[in-house]
C-alpha cells in the first residue's frame, strides 16, 4: 500500500526529482547492505568463539595445547583453568565468567544479532523495492522524453 502510494507520487514528479529519489534510495540500499554484511561477519565470529568454547570445555585441565602468537608462530602451553574464560564485552572491558556463562553470552549475542539482521533485512528489501520502482519510472520517463523529442 505504501509503495503503491509512493509510486503514484513518483509518477507525478519531474525527471530530475525521480533521479534524485532513485539516487537517494540506492545510497540507502548500499548502506543497509553494508550493515547486513557487517552483522553477518560479526555473527560468524561469535559462532567461531562459541564453538571454541565448546571445544575448550571438553578438554581436561593440564592438556597440552599450542597457542598461536601470530598466524604462523605457535608456542606450546598447558591448559590451567578450563572452567573460567575472559570475555571481551567491548570498549576495553573484560569480564571473567564461567564456561556455561560464556557460552550463554555468545548465544545471547548471536540471537541479538540475528534479530537485528532480520529487522534490517526487512527494511533493506523495502528500500530496494522503492529504488527499483524509482528506476522503472525514471526509465519510462526517459523513454517518453526520447520519443517525444
Amino acid at each position, binding site marked *: 500500500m505504501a509503495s503503491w502510494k509512493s509510486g503514484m507520487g513518483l509518477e507525478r514528479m519531474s525527471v530530475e526529482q525521480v533521479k534524485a529519489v532513485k539516487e537517494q534510495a540506492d545510497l540507502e540500499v548500499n548502506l543497509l547492505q553494508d550493515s547486513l554484511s557487517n552483522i553477518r561477519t560479526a555473527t560468524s565470529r561469535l559462532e567461531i568463539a562459541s564453538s571454541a568454547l565448546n571445544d575448550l570445555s571438553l578438554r581436561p585441565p593440564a592438556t597440552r595445547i599450542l597457542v598461536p602468537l601470530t598466524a604462523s608462530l605457535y608456542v606450546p602451553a598447558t591448559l590451567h583453568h578450563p572452567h573460567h574464560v*575472559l570475555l571481551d*564485552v*567491548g*570498549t*576495553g*572491558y*573484560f*569480564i*571473567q*565468567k564461567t564456561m556455561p556463562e560464556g557460552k550463554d*553470552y555468545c548465544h545471547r549475542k548471536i540471537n541479538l544479532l540475528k534479530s537485528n539482521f532480520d529487522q534490517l533485512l526487512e527494511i533493506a528489501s523495502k528500500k530496494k523495492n522503492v529504488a527499483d520502482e524509482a528506476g522503472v519510472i525514471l526509465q519510462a520517463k526517459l523513454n517518453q522524453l526520447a520519443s517525444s523529442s
Partner: protein
Amino acid sequence: MREWSEYDWAGPLGLRKRKRKKKEEKQEGAQVALRNTNSSNAMSSSNLRDAQRELENKANDLSKLQKEIAKNHQMRKKYTVQLGENELVLKELDLLKDDANVYKLIGPVLVKQDLAEANANVRKRIEYISAELKRLDATVQDLEEKQNSKKDTIVKLQQRIQSLQAGKGKA
C-alpha cells in the same frame, strides 16, 4: 645557486602572490556586493557579470556548508556507534553478580577493576556521548538552516541573472 633561486621563486614570492590574490578576491567580492545594492535595476553587461561572480561566491559558500554538514554527519555516526557499544557493555555489566571479576584493558595490560567503578565509568561515558550527540544535532540543524537560506539566495540570484540575460537579449 640552485637552492637560492628555488627559495626565491617558489618560496616567499609564491606565497606572497597567493596571498595577494586572495586579498584581491575579497575586495572584489565586497565591491560586487556594493555595486549590486546600488543599481539592482540597471541591466548593463557589467551588472550581469557581477551577478554571476556573486553567484559563484555563494555557490562556493554553499559547497563549504555542505562539506561541514557531511563532516558533522560522520561525527554523529561515530558517536552513535560508540553509544551503542557502551550501552551493550552496560547491559552486560548490569547482568553480573556483585562478586564478578571485571578487567579493563589499558594499553596492553589488563587491569582488574571494581564492578561499581566500571559501571559508573560506562554510565558517565554514555552520558557524555549523549550530550555530544545532542550538541551535534543542534549544529547540524543550524547548518541545514543556513544551507537552505543559501540555496534560496542562489535561486534568486539565478533568476536575476536570467532576467538580466533576457533583458540584454531584447536590447
